[in-house]
């Protein structure tokens, strides 16, 4: 392609250059390492908190670092990471989706039933993703098309999917045939596969958000939808797409969860929305949209995931787990609020 990045109309005119359009010195040194730290300070402070926690665990509870429990921990969090990636997208675009837990349950049961009907996994996976995407599309159409507030729309679909599923299945578990668990691999290999899938998705999405125009549009729409529209972006389309993508990720996450056990619980995914939103917020994404990154989300998820085992290893009563998680979330939100106020 021809290198058409310069507007020929605006090349400094030879006569004008001397007088009116002379180069003004710009202070380039500010964009070096300092700039990196400054721009990613939110993510870095969460990462520092995680580092401190891990360090503390290394000293106080070295048992935390035994390979098998650690692998199990990461495997448990892998589906949540996939959902959190999608959730980060939606929240950066200044929307929210609290129906992901119900979507997750619906996709899980659907995947379970299809495998019980002896569908090959290679077909069950796309089916689950497609179901998730279409549920996301419904949310997206209501939010973007009819311009309804996303919190209300997804509250309604959250209840609708959950209750619909209860009515349909009467709380029955779905028994899976042999060879589905861990894709028929050994447990360790299966666990590693799931973690790798989640990480690959994270890297792909994080890079896409940085390097693809669509990713930048999500930030623009989250900052100000009207300003984005006046820049020729179609905000409704962007919003719709983020919901569809989140739904598809939920479908994938459900599949990653199904293969971890011999049965599918129709109540799976309860509280997943809170977990995903908490990870996103703790990871430094502004709940008001337009700011944050997927890297931060991943770190936020890990931080929250490490709170429980840390408490267990420190022999703190289990009642305190939720309270601690809540405190971490509150701390993140308060820190962000104080910061934003300072910047103004």
């Amino acid at each position, binding site marked *: 392609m021809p290198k058409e990045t310069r507007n020929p*109309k605006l090349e400094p005119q030879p006569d004008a250059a001397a007088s009116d359009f002379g*180069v003004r010195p710009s202070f380039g040194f500010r964009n070096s390492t300092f700039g990196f730290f400054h721009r990613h300070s939110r993510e870095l402070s969460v990462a520092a908190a995680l580092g401190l926690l891990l360090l503390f665990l290394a000293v106080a509870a070295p048992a935390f670092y035994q390979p098998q429990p650690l692998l199990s921990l990461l495997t448990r969090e892998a589906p949540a990471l996939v959902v959190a990636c999608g959730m980060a997208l939606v929240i950066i675009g200044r929307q929210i989706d609290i129906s992901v837990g119900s979507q997750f349950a619906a996709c899980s049961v659907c995947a379970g039933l299809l495998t019980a009907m002896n569908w090959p996994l290679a077909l069950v996976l796309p089916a689950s993703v497609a179901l998730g995407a279409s549920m996301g599309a419904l949310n997206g159409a209501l939010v973007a098309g009819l311009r309804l507030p996303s919190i209300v729309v997804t509250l309604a679909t959250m209840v609708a999917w959950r209750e619909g599923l209860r009515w349909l299945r009467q709380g029955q578990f779905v028994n899976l045939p042999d060879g589905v668990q861990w894709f028929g691999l050994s447990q360790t290999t299966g666990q590693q596969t799931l973690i790798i899938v989640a990480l690959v998705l994270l890297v792909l999405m994080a890079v896409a958000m940085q390097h693809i*125009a669509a990713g930048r549009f999500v930030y623009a729409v989250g*900052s100000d939808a009207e300003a984005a529209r006046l820049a020729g972006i179609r905000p409704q389309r962007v919003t719709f797409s983020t919901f569809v993508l989140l739904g598809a990720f939920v479908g994938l996450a459900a599949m990653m969860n199904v293969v971890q056990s011999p049965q599918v619980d129709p109540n799976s995914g309860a509280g997943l929305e809170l977990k995903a939103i908490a990870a996103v917020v703790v990871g430094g994404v502004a709940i008001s949209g337009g700011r944050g990154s997927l890297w931060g989300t991943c770190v936020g998820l890990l931080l929250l995931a490490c709170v429980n085992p840390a408490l267990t290893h420190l022999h703190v009563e289990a009642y305190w787990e939720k309270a601690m998680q809540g405190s971490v979330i509150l701390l993140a939100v308060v820190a962000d609020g104080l910061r934003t106020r300072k910047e103004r």
Partner: protein
Amino acid sequence: MTTALLQLTHVTKSFGAVCALKGVSFDLQAVEVHALVGENGAGKSTLIKVITGAHQPDTGTIEIAGQPVCHLTPAAAHKLGIACIYQQPALFPDLTVAENIALRLEPATAVRRVQWPHRRARAAQLLRRIGASIAPDAVVRGLSMPEQQLVEIACALGASARILIMDEPTSSLTEQEQHRLFAIVRDLRASGAGVIYISHRLEEIFAIADRVTVLRDGESVGTRVVGRSRGDEALTEKSEIRNSKSQIEQSLLTSAATISEAELIKLMVGREVSHLYPPAESAPGDVVLSLKNVGCAASGVKNVTLDVRAGETVGIAGLVGAGRTELARVLFGVTPADTGEILLNGQRVTVRSPAEAVGLGIAYVPEDRRRHGVILEMPIAANMTMASHRRIFPRNWLRFGAERQLALDYLRALDVESNGPDTLVVHLSGGNQQKVALARWLATNPKLLILDEPTQGVDVGAKSEIHKIIRRLAKDGLAVLMMSSDLPEVLGMSDRVAVMRGGTIIAMLAGKSDAHEVMAAAFGQAC
């Protein structure tokens, strides 16, 4: 001479570095309609806000009925009998008329028994007094704009306001409704109130006002008695009003002479058009944009016919609410046109969304720069490429090197003061933000550039730099359409000036025309 109802002495008010009022003195007598006129930004609304207690003056004194008042707040102003009716009625749309009136008039105690029959009876009585046939139980959302205005007047009446401020009350009224409003205003005056009447329509001022004060650039440039040249005497007025009015006139006539329309316009425009504008260098080329009877019912633009040629700068002048921004938004597809034809380079086009407009080579630098022109939380480079990703990154992969280079080129070409392309736009000054907004659109390589208030809130130095940039763009063959409230700017920068009023273009003037001519057209006076 009796004490004035309201007396402002040497009131100043600045917002940051901008001085909105520079020592304005103003007085309002009982039994008087005192009109306040001036160009956009002359300081009318600031003055009103000082009177209603919304703004505190920096210096100067306010006296109400001879009593000096300091620290006037909206609540205190209300207690002192000051009421204001804004252009847009400020009622609660989901409450009934009676509830709205009660909210203004009843004491603001949260816990007390509401006496519904009394509430309704009072609303009905007030509405009857102004001759409005509105049911007290009607929900405000269902009322028309003039009806809502009548409810506002009823509130003012119920509060037995002695000082009533009306800010362009007729902008949404039909002629008949306007006559009724005038009758109400005259009644109020007869009952001893003073009315401050703000309007952009000169004929109204001659029909209703006793005196007129002209504001220009935050200064009062004169108060004159309004001559009754327009046959207002023919309208029925009770004789006693005329008597009391003529007393005032007599007392005032000694200090000032009556004024004619032409004189009033001259007072408003006053200043010389600055000669600092760079000269036009380009000869207009082919017609780029051609509008034929373009209209949009939703935004009130109607029957706009206009040509803009390559290399030409066409200015759009007009008062606030004349439809300038609305026209820009129609052309850019924000509120798409529903009648007429838009031709771009001779081809008929439909612009249904900003995205389509960008695809067609139309660029729009919007009015509210901080909110719409740039995305403050993003770096300069990302802002500059925001509208032209397809052109700059044909493979849909953002190359930050190319982006930085483009940003650096524009930073240099437009002389933006910054710490480089990665600086967040929020950290730039107003003028530099505007240059970034401009660069975003130049990067799309447009055929037509629409600038809406390109130098609003920009300091003088950056303003002249932006003017030079616009000139150079025109010289390079871009068609420029520039909306501006700044009359000297429109006259100084434009090859031709279209004057808008009521959503349509009512006059097409040469670029070097007289400011008086433009103002006369904008105020709806035959040239």
